[in-house]
């Protein structure tokens, strides 16, 4: 190749690259307001108009909503608007910084920043409650040309006392609480509240009797939940009933636990049960013991208890995870009668397959009420049943309405977070 031939072409390419870099630098550094049709040769879009700022509703006072009328060149006119950029400052004559971009056709932007600054992580953009901010909006064309900025508008964040989007939750709480109080009061007045028999619960007394006849202990496992989990709380009630029976029959009940607070509650439950049975002297706190907080070491320990102590009956009542089948299968190998109950949907199949009786989901809570016959628990169960009836009515009516293209029922129960 002849050097003289290609040299001017190379020079031309280098010149073009330099020109592009130079223009790129100009584009990057020039103030947005300066970029216009004159400087780039492409027409600037018309600016958005009628910009207004409102407080973001249903929040803790850390957000504002900026709305505007679309640029005249958005859907009509030059149709060259590509996006809108929202700029914010803490003073009308201060420096405006970009807060966000929305695409053409969109006329709203939600400016939220609730990350409270700390000494280690400062946040100058934090929007405190009651803080005032100034906004302007610019349109940007598909040729990267900015419009003139809109007028500057001001808005102040406000903390909202009530979250209207959560109104369905409040209504549900009110309805449920009304039912609850009604049934609890009725039960306390001595009204007989019917609960259908549950197979798993009818087996509890038989299982305790079996352990007594065999002279073997009962193993009660409360699962891996905390003392505040509803399934664990239901487990405590069933433990109370079992412990009371074992105190009467003088059978040992072993309760290995994996949580210190559960240990405290379980010990208290068993101690009270022995007291109610009139045998406080028989209570041995060593039978309710902490093993470890880790899942599989806990399983390893409980499995070995099953094989070494050979309990006549194993109860699994509470919150279970992957250990459910490991425990239930080992209990099977040990030849124990097994009664399980959990509200963990993923673990129920294993209990159904590997234990003799299973309390499925809400049956666990019902069992707790059924056994205790306490007005509060019976009333709660009744309230739940009546709430279920309301749910069924809503589903039937809602499905029919949706089929007929009426969405009002679905809209009423929609939660806006």
């Amino acid at each position: 190749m002849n050097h003289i031939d290609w040299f001017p072409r190379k020079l031309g390419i280098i010149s073009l690259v330099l020109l592009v870099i130079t223009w790129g630098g100009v584009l990057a550094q020039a103030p947005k307001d300066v970029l216009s049709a004159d400087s780039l040769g492409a027409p600037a879009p018309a600016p958005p108009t009628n910009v207004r700022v409102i407080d973001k509703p249903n929040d803790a006072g850390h957000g504002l909503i900026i709305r505007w009328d679309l640029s005249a060149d958005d859907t009509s006119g030059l149709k060259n608007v590509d996006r809108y950029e929202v700029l914010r400052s803490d003073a009308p004559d201060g420096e405006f910084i970009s807060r966000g971009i929305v695409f053409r056709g969109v006329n709203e932007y939600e400016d939220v920043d609730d990350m409270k600054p700390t000494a280690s992580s400062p946040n100058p953009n934090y929007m405190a409650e009651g803080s005032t901010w100034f906004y302007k909006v610019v349109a940007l064309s598909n040729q990267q040309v900015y419009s003139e900025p809109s007028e500057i508008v001001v808005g102040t964040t406000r903390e909202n006392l009530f979250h209207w989007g959560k109104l369905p939750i409040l209504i549900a709480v009110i309805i449920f609480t009304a039912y609850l109080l009604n049934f609890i009061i009725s039960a306390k007045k001595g009204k007989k509240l019917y609960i259908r028999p549950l197979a798993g619960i009818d087996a509890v007394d038989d299982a305790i009797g079996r352990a007594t006849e065999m002279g073997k202990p009962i193993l009660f496992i409360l699962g891996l939940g905390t003392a505040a989990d509803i399934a664990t709380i239901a487990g405590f009630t069933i433990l109370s009933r079992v412990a009371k029976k074992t105190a009467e029959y003088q059978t040992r009940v072993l309760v290995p636990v994996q949580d210190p607070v559960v240990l405290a509650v379980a010990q208290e439950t068993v101690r009270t049960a022995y007291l109610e049975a009139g045998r406080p002297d028989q209570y041995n706190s060593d039978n309710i013991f902490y093993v470890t907080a880790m899942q599989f070491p806990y399983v390893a320990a409980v499995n070995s208890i099953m094989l070494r102590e050979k309990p006549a009956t194993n109860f699994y009542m509470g919150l279970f995870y992957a250990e459910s089948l490991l425990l239930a299968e080992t209990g099977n190998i040990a030849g124990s009668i097994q009664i399980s109950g959990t509200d963990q949907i993923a673990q129920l199949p294993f209990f159904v397959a590997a234990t003799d009786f299973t309390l499925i989901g809400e049956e666990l809570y019902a069992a707790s009420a059924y056994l205790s016959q306490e007005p509060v628990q019976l009333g709660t169960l009744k309230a739940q049943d009546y709430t279920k009836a309301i749910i069924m009515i809503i589903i039937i009516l809602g499905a029919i309405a949706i089929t007929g293209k009426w969405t009002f029922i679905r809209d009423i129960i929609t939660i806006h977070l």
Partner: protein
Amino acid sequence: MHISANIMVWFGAFLTLSILSFLYKDNVFYKFAEHLFVGVSAAYWMVIGIWGTLFPNLIAKIYPGGVRFVLPSLADRPPEYYYIIPAILGILLLMRLSKKLGWISRWPLAFIVGTTAGFNLVRYLRSDFIGQVRNTLIPLIVIKDGSFNFIGSFSNTVIIVGVLCGLIYFFFSKEHKGAFGVASRIGIWILMITFGAGFGYTVMARISLLVGRMQFLMGDWLGIINR
């Protein structure tokens, strides 16, 4: 075949085989592995509790200067004295170690159970109650592209009937007899079919755990397979 020369891999393989020996019967190797496993995990959680909870979430909040040598990043923060309340509740919980003052421990227990139940009420109402009811409001007859969609309609009908029958099964105030009993039985069938599908799905996940252990024994330890 390339057997590992790493003593920790050998120890890991020994513990794995010791735990697996439980499949045969309870034995001394399993007992050793079990006791080691339980002991190490209990100690580990105690250390996590001290350094992951007690120091950063309590001592560093009340008296930041007290953690200067162990957690220096937290030492210069302003004290947050309201953390004294959970500290008091924690101390009250420990009162159960005393025979005379053990009854005091019931107060923090009641606080823990009560507050969590209160928080959970709203959370469950939102996600498990209203959210699920809303998602069940689907059309019984699905029209797609202007014509009747049989699969969509059948699928939606099964969902709605399944939910209603499932709810009837968990209705405890009425004996399950007659039409109510039939709906209840349909409900339990739907539950059992769901459980069957869940069982198969989870068993497959467990097999992947077994495969992982086998890969350790065959690959890392014995070098029979390449990992």
